[in-house]
């Protein structure tokens, strides 16, 4: 079943499946990356929603804040860093754990993302073990 991105009610409907599933929003313009990440994050017992850029993600978060956001940097319409700064300015926007997940690996850019309010940073390529250890380090699992 494929879910469309950026619509809050879908996130809500998926919450009914079990008692207290945690939710994760995957924001990436690559459908393949979203698919790979979704499989890993669902394996960590999260309900997953997807957004293809920062603006879709922001619309989603205005409706319902996910517990964790996996965020690409370079995307059309609105990039990850702009999304992150706007998210943190929203009411309740400080709550989600935000993990950047991008091919950008320069130390100064990583530092920039962290100072903009990211909780952690995943450099692509990544695998399930890296992602689950990152989720554990930010206290999401």
């Amino acid at each position, binding site marked *: 079943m494929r879910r469309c991105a950026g619509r809050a009610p879908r996130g809500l409907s998926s919450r009914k499946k079990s008692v207290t599933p945690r939710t994760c929003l995957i924001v990436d313009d690559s459908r393949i990356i979203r698919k790979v990440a979704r499989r890993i994050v669902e394996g960590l017992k999260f309900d997953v929603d997807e957004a293809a850029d920062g603006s879709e993600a922001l619309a989603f978060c205005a409706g319902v804040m996910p517990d964790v956001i996996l965020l690409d940097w370079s995307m059309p319409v609105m990039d990850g860093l702009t999304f992150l700064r706007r998210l943190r300015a929203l009411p309740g926007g400080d709550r989600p754990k935000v993990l950047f997940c991008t091919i950008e690996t320069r130390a100064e850019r*990583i530092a920039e993302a962290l100072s903009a309010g990211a909780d952690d940073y995943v450099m692509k390529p990544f695998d399930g*073990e*890296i992602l689950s*250890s990152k989720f554990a380090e930010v206290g999401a699992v």
Partner: protein
Amino acid sequence: MSPEDFDRLQSLMATRAGYRLTRDRMKLAEHRLGPVARREGFETVDAMLAALWGKPVAGLGWSIIEALLNPETWFRRDRAAFETFSRELLPALIRARAGQPIRIWSAGCSTGQEVWSIGMAALELGAPVEIVATDLSRRALEKARTGAYTGFEIQRGLKAQTMLRWFDQAEDAWIARAELRALAHFARANLLTAPAADAPRFDVIFCRHVMDDMESAARGQVLDQLERRLVDDGCLFLGAEERIGDDSLAFRPVAGRKGLFVKSPAALKRAA
């Protein structure tokens, strides 16, 4: 690889490393030995093994043994152990040792992630530590000594903030900072071999996921060596799921702290 070759490999691993090479790992063994054969200039794994059986165990034999060990490790593996170490053990040791260096042994350090995890915890608390890091594998030690990791390795278990704080980026690698590397001394050691009688003792020993694949008798032997190298009020960390069971009477588990062991009353009595 013939079944006879595999039998001989099994016995080589058991006698030299105490390692139980189970039959289901035959394919894996063959896969791991391919690169060794190429490096050592043999056409095939079979040709390399034929040459090995004709000679006493020396460089080639150890290269083969090394390739069959399990090198897997990552930063802050079994996170709870590192929480216990940095929140409880280190603060207590800082008080107890009153400025004297705290001696730590990473026994079976593989490619070094454990060493730097210990070092980062110590530097963050300002604890004066000396870390001795040993492994059977020369190749793993070589990598550990460089303190250099790929993007893939560096982020397994390490938060980005911690990575930026303690590692410098050099092209595609992340390299442990000099202040971190200064804490560690690396050496090759076989845990089955008895150390010199006057070998210095340690306050804390990490020997995690080293004995997972060992024969029971070898585990007992290793645990007895570790007991001799640990101060009487010292602590031993094994992997979170590792049990000592009947292999040795030297240690007892600490309740509520997975993977943490202290000397048993029997071991302390023997020492007294």
